[in-house]
């Protein structure tokens, strides 16, 4: 539908700080067409976002870097908040190492031994004798981030439900970038955009999940080859807000209409065609 028809109103978005750049870019682009729609985009985190969305009912849209959890869905049911989940982009979690490290590709099992709490590798050569004899130091996101959670729950999935604890961690991904770039033998992981921006000082590892080594890129993520590190990013839209508040409808329609462009600007990986079609039809089903 697009903007420009003079609709006015407010839209409140909060939630994942990972998805924040996307929703924020959508708001910026929309504002260029219709400055009467006032969109606010928070970055309280996925959990905080769902609290605002379900419990407090103060947001129209909740950004999430993981699917909604059962207890959160229950909270939404309690308050009668019906919602629609929209897949908006993919983030290729990128495992990076110091550029001098002579390792190109690792298997998923090796990945688990690098980041998991069980049988953790302390030297690259522990993983594979062909790897250099260099100590492993690691830089990982903080335990409270969705990125940590994805690596923990969906990739490593150890019984202890934690990642190894002797790695350095920071909530600020730029700190991780600096850490890996500045430390021999260092390894880390974070969102694709942080790698893309610092590709000259980092090296991204290829991941072998059984079908050969795959490097992170838009194509491999879209095609589904980059597993298991391609993680989906969502927005959750309140059905009632979409129906009753034309500003919300306008914003969501504009967002989904321009999804590929927005994802590219925000340095995420746009959906492949079938995923995009599914998202579009979900929006159409909203009304």
């Amino acid at each position, binding site marked *: 539908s697009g903007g420009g028809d003079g609709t006015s109103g*407010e839209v*409140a978005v909060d939630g994942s700080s990972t998805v924040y*750049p996307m929703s924020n870019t959508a708001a*910026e682009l929309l504002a260029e067409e219709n400055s009467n729609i*006032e969109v606010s985009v*928070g970055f309280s985190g996925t959990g905080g976002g769902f609290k605002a969305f379900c419990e407090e009912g*103060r*947001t129209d849209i909740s950004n999430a870097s993981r699917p909604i959890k059962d207890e959160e869905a229950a909270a939404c049911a309690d308050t009668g908040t019906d919602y629609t989940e929209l897949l908006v982009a993919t983030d290729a979690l990128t495992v990076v190492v110091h550029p001098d490290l002579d390792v190109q590709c690792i298997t998923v099992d090796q990945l688990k031994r690098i980041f998991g709490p069980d049988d953790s590798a302390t030297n690259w050569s522990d993983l594979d004798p062909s790897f250099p004899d260099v100590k492993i130091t690691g830089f990982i996101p903080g335990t409270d981030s969705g990125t940590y959670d994805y690596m923990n729950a969906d990739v490593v999935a150890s019984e202890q439900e934690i990642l190894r604890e002797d790695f350095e961690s920071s*909530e600020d991904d730029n700190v991780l970038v600096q850490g890996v770039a500045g430390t021999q033998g260092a390894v880390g992981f974070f*969102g694709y955009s942080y790698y893309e921006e610092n590709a000259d000082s980092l090296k991204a590892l290829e991941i072998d999940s059984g079908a050969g080594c795959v490097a992170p890129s838009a194509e491999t993520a879209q095609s589904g080859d980059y597993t298991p590190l391609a993680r989906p990013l969502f927005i959750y839209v309140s059905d009632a807000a979409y129906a009753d508040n034309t500003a919300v409808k306008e914003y969501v329609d504009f967002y989904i209409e321009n999804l590929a462009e927005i994802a590219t600007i925000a340095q995420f990986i746009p959906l492949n065609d079938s995923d995009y079609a599914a998202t579009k039809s979900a929006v159409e089903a909203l009304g």
Partner: protein
Amino acid sequence: MNITATTAANVTASTLATGKRKDRNTSSLIFMGALWFSMFFGVAVLAALILDTALSGAGRFDSQLLFDYESTVRKEETGFRAGILGTIWLMLATALLAIPVGIATAVHLEEFADRTAWYSKVIEVNLQNLAAVPSIIYGMLAAAIMGLLGFTYKGIVLGGAIALGLLILPVIIIATREALRAVPQDIRQGSLALGATTWQTTWRQTLPSAIPGIATGTILGLSRAVGEAAPLLMLGVATVRFDPTSVLDKVTALPLQIYSLASAPQEALQEAASAAIILLLALIIGMNAVAIFIRNKFQRSW
């Protein structure tokens, strides 16, 4: 010449004019050096910080930094308009909330309450304690208060002002009390002896005389609030792309915008954040300068 006198004179001749100074001996000099170092250590760190930040933000001291909204589309032109306006709104609302209550509290405690009563001591201790409470806890308290007031969305000017107002309230109270205490008892007695009431004395003599001290303390309190991000974070303050027009409007603040942009992956955004840091520092230095000016200009020696 008298024997004793001569002896005494001899003693002094050898010890008075040695040409050595006990204020200039080695340990004294080392001590003075250490004091100098201490004095200028902080200043040096401040200078290094400003220099380091100014260099990283050097490319972005342009008008867009001031007048444009945040932009991920044109990262080189991203601006802090929302944060600057938000900070101005927040500061005004904070001042309106905290200054009257703070001054009134201080006046009550200093001029009306029985200072020897046990509860006065409890209050005194309580205030000193509040001044040391972590700012993040004030954010949580403000969130709770906003909930009680029935606001679902807390990241508005009012919410931020409550958080920051609570944060600086003890500072204002303590500064005001000190300023009131510095007004000599003479002035109060002079007024009371003429048949003025306590309130008249306070309103017409004590408070006007204390204004420079109160102003200084208040500005310093506000300049602390300007840089606070943690309590606002607790309120779920969001990025906005419009100017607030009332205290019920959503708002962001300069330090929060800096925090969010400095963590962005793109170098252009980080550079803008550095430039905005210099902006924020300039604002704080400006506020401090005003406070110092007031302090120096109106400082009265009674």
